[in-house]
């Protein structure tokens, strides 16, 4: 009994944390979502969400999050695949992770410097004869910077999955007549799919609600659900509508978690 009791005691800090910073905010958000601007209970916010403006916004959020996730995956998988096979893979991995320790805002400002009219990117374009281009405040720069920020989070789980892969399985596939591509398709990818799923979750969900980058890098040309929530809380003061969008974001997140849920098969 003693051990059971003491085990519960260790749980207390975590339980308090969850209650204060996870459960309470969610309850508050749900609560606010049922009140309109004048403080009356109504379902108006939910009706509002299903109008063209917000649906379009949701769609565009999904589209950008999808693009960011897909491009991150396309870059991260080959990188991780290559990293597992290099000699000092831990060192390389560290170098890839280090930028993720730098504050997001700092990185955003750095990119403003790089992509700005007189930044390094335009200097380069000038030098190779293409000439100065508007890079900042475009879809391109938004997606580029987002991918840059999320890529370590995509590489890590895929790298882990790949390094757990038993190399003799690759020999076995090869031995049974599989070409390199077939081996990848039939063995490597299915066995690292859990890493891919985790990576996609870690990237897609935050990408849905990016708001700082949309302002700093995309110059508010890209309006995502995250931007809308920020605007409602800080600018229009319509906490009810902001909360409603947040409720939908939370639901979407749970749906994605459920859809990409890990179902590990024994090794």
């Amino acid at each position, binding site marked *: 009994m003693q051990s059971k009791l003491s085990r519960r005691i260790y749980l207390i800090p975590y339980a308090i944390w969850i209650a204060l910073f996870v459960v309470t905010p969610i309850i508050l958000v749900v609560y606010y979502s049922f009140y309109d601007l004048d403080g009356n209970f109504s379902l108006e916010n939910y009706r509002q969400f299903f109008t063209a403006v917000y649906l379009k916004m949701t769609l565009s959020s999904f589209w950008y999050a999808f693009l960011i996730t897909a491009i991150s995956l396309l870059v991260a998988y080959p990188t991780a695949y290559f990293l597992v096979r290099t000699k000092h893979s831990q060192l390389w991995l560290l170098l890839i992770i280090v930028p993720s320790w730098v504050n997001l805002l700092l990185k955003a400002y750095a990119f403003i410097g790089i992509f700005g009219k007189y930044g390094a990117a335009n200097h380069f374009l000038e030098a190779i004869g293409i000439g100065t281009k508007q890079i900042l405040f475009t879809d391109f720069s938004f997606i580029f910077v987002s991918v840059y920020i999320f890529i370590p989070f995509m590489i890590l789980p895929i790298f882990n999955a790949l390094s757990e892969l038993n190399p003799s399985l690759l*020999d*076995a596939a090869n*031995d049974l*007549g599989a*070409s390199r591509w077939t081996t990848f398709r039939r063995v490597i990818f299915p066995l690292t799919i859990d890493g891919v799923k985790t990576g996609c979750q870690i990237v897609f969900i935050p990408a849905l609600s990016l708001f700082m980058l949309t302002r700093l890098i995309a110059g508010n040309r890209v309006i995502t659900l995250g931007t809308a929530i920020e605007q409602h809380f800080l600018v229009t003061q319509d906490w009810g509508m902001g909360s409603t969008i947040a409720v939908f974001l939370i639901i979407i997140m749970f749906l994605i978690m459920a859809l990409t849920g890990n179902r590990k*098969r*024994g*090794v």
Partner: protein
Amino acid sequence: MENAVIIQFNHVTKQYQNDPAVLKDVSFEIERGKFYTLLGPSGCGKTTILRLIAGFTEATTGDIFIDGKKVNTIPANRRQVNTVFQDYALFPHLNVFENVAFGLRIKKMKQAQIEAKVKEALSFVNLKGYENREISGMSGGQRQRVAIARAIVNEPEVILLDEPLSALDLKLRTQMQYELRELQKRLGITFIFVTHDQEEALAMSDEIFVLNEGKIQQSGTPIDIYDEPINRFVADFIGESNIVPGIMIEDFLVEFVGKRFDCVDQGMNTNEPVEVVIRPEDLEITTREQGKLQVTVHSLLFRGVHYELSCTDEDGNEWLVHSTKKAAIGDEIGLYFDPESIHVMRLGESEEDFDRRLEAYTEEDHHAK
């Protein structure tokens, strides 16, 4: 008969970067339909030979032929050879059926045909009805069988087995030895089996290649290798041996531990220094007077089937004896052996010279008759 040889190694050397060579100028031939064993301690190069045949690695120099075709640059996926891996290397995301069907699906075989073939392969390894099991839910022995089924279902010319029994417990291992041997006979496919276990090698093989330090020390049938080891390494590695230095006085007469004994070896120089091997089971316990050697027992182990006595003679040589008779520690006993039990090895004799010498005097025997 030009088709009897299925695999041929021609002066093959394998070296990884600047490390010492793993295989040193190895040449051999493997005949169709036989059970071969590559036997040697870890690091002797036996697994490297297997990987070279499978195509997982390329020879540094020398040529490898499979079925008369040079395969040096042919990748593993286009060789008519299948491997059973030491850790089985079954695909954990596929069930038993799909694991076995893997090779067939790559060949784009029709579903009905795949089903028939997988069924047949599974019944060959006594796993009928296990098609839908997950790999994680199977025991070591069952996984082993799936791995074998996955190899034989492709109907390869050669099956390579890389220490496939080493992860099984003793009882299961013995059972699988019988099953593998049986399977090989039924299928008539060439098996190349890698092991460091000499008992396994002796029990299963048609032919054994004994390897050490990247070279084939001796090749031959289990009986040849056991009875006529070429050198100290082989004598020591295959079974237990008493090895003492001696001098070949003349044909059929050898001197060791200060005495002269009749033997059946010949073809050496007079007074040539040699090593003499007598197997522990060829030594019989008798009285001091009747024995050819007089020794003192200093330890005794009960091994189940026999007693293992460790004795020393007056010169301090140790003699290991396997006997069903018991003796007490400290007893002074005599050891008797037949002239046929003495095996004389020349120092540093190559396998070719050894074979030539043996052939020379078997021919003489023929002439005598």
